[in-house]
């Protein structure tokens, strides 16, 4: 066996599994133990053919290689020239880089927004406002006996959730594993989750609110009058409500399938209030991409006491819902700096079209649709493999990322690049 690096943290998703073992041989990764398909990508991307190894600048319409120093200088010049720069991304980078980014935005009086704000950010803000706790994943493993999966499919998005934290492992008070727990899944289609679920509620799209209202009513002790609600027979809803009532410690996992409109969020908060009044302990865990999405919200709160995003043009800084999209629509951005995100892949096409008007500076470790349209691209290390740092797990637990390999020559981490921008400007 070669050089074994144990307790490596995987940055594939926001679970940040910390039991990974990586076997190194001659300074290269030979095998990885316990990594899922999503996490394996991080280790495989080191020698990926789309890995970025040199800074690029668009000259006469074509991206050409330039030196690292030139790229930093060009970026600073563009930032100084810009009237309304905007910093976007941050979900997939270390906490240290996020802090530097917030300082940089403050220095240039820019806007700053996180890529997962429209999903996780809003939920966390509203849950915090109502004082609803996000349970620790270890607590879920030890005590949870009811798992509700609403609009999410962790077998594809958070692949090790079921085996490492939620359903299968045997914890202190759940020593029979899955036999001590009940899982219920709510989705608009049959997913792989149905295999694990006691009750499967296949609802019509957009009917989440109606079903949750019905559950609230039953838990409050009222009876339902309609026979079928949200495509689910009344009997099934009563059955699920009874399971919820009998739970000692339940967890509601909800993903992007639960639309985060204000109406839906109000109903969700009311559900938590109702169960808490009845003395039923149910925690909320939003499942989302971006391994350090909650880190941005925490850091912004620490730094400027805002939770979602910050507009440093006004003083004191203010926050706006859907900050990036609103600013783009109002033509308020003249330079976009993207760190740790790929907006062109993730945002809808009518928003992406608006990016065409503005120069983009992208800091990433591999080619993405965003780097393809960028004016300047600065390559970076893969956090958790080639650079260390801190990331926050989806339950706010800080996890230290390990450096296990030396990065390629001339490649710096997000934190070092942002620090250089901060110091040299």
């Amino acid at each position, binding site marked *: 066996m070669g050089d074994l690096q144990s307790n490596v943290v995987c940055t594939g998703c926001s679970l940040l599994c910390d039991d*990974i*073992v990586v076997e190194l041989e001659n300074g290269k990764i030979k095998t990885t*133990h*316990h*990594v899922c*398909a999503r996490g394996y990508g991080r280790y495989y991307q080191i020698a990926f053919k789309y890995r970025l190894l040199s800074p690029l600048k668009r000259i006469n319409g074509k991206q050409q290689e330039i030196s690292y120093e030139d790229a930093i200088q060009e970026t600073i010049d563009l930032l100084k020239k810009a009237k309304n720069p905007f910093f976007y991304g941050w979900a997939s980078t270390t906490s240290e880089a996020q802090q530097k980014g917030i300082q940089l935005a403050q220095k240039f009086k820019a806007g700053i927004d996180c890529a997962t704000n429209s999903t996780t950010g809003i939920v966390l803000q509203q849950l915090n406002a109502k004082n609803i706790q996000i349970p620790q994943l270890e607590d879920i493993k030890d005590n949870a006996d009811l798992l509700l999966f609403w609009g999410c499919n962790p077998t594809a998005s958070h692949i090790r959730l079921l*085996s490492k934290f939620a359903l299968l492992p*045997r914890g202190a008070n759940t020593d029979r594993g899955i036999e001590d727990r009940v899982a219920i899944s709510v989705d608009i289609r049959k997913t*792989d989750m149905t295999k694990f679920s006691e009750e499967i509620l296949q609802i019509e799209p957009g009917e989440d609110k109606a079903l949750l209202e019905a559950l609230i009513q039953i838990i409050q002790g009222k009876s339902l009058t309609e026979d079928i609600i949200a495509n689910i027979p009344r009997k099934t809803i009563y059955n699920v409500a009874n399971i919820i009532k009998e739970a000692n410690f339940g967890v509601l996992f909800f993903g992007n399938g639960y639309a985060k409109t204000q109406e839906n969020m109000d109903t969700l908060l009311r559900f938590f209030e109702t169960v808490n009044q009845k003395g039923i302990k149910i925690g909320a865990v939003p499942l989302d991409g971006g391994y350090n999405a909650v880190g941005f919200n925490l850091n912004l709160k620490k730094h400027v006491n805002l939770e979602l995003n910050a507009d440093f043009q006004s003083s004191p800084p203010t926050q706006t819902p859907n900050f990036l999209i609103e600013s783009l629509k109002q033509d308020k951005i003249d330079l976009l700096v993207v760190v740790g995100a790929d907006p062109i892949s993730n945002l809808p096409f009518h928003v992406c079209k608006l990016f065409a008007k503005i120069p983009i500076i992208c800091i990433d470790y591999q080619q993405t649709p965003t780097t393809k349209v960028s004016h300047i691209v600065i390559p970076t290390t893969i956090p958790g493999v080639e650079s260390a740092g801190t990331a926050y797990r989806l339950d706010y637990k800080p996890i230290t990322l390990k450096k296990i390999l030396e990065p390629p020559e001339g490649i710096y981490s997000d934190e070092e690049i942002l620090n250089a921008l901060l110091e040299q400007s």
Partner: protein
Amino acid sequence: MGRLNAFQIYKLLPKTNCKECGESTCMAFATKLLNQERKLDECPILLESKYQANYEQLKELLAPAEGALETGITLDEDLCTGCGNCVVACPPNARVCDACKGGSGPDPSNDKIIFRVLDSKAKIVNLKICRRYEPPITNCRICEMYCPTRAIEILR
């Protein structure tokens, strides 16, 4: 395609119940084929040119069964996502590895366990502790039950 059953095999056999293979009926032969107790070539009628198409079709059907290990388990690595459900759910695995019991990955040097995940694919390390390996054999299907992508299938 679902799990292969004896009737699917029977439909492609000559259905003459000639007893030349030593079994009393073709259906009995089909069941033994599925359990890998008999070989396809042991049916002399099937080797005639008349049944050549059926013979080839059967060979294709039984190919995954031939790859099955002693306990009838097959693992398709192309479908596996490395979720580790089999590692954690498998009761003998949890018995020989405390880390697996609690949901973490096993120690890389532990070679007693049945399943481990290597490079995001589940691997079978040691089948000897499987509940289906040595008498008293139980019809345990837990790994198959909790595999979300149907990468693990038990053929009998």
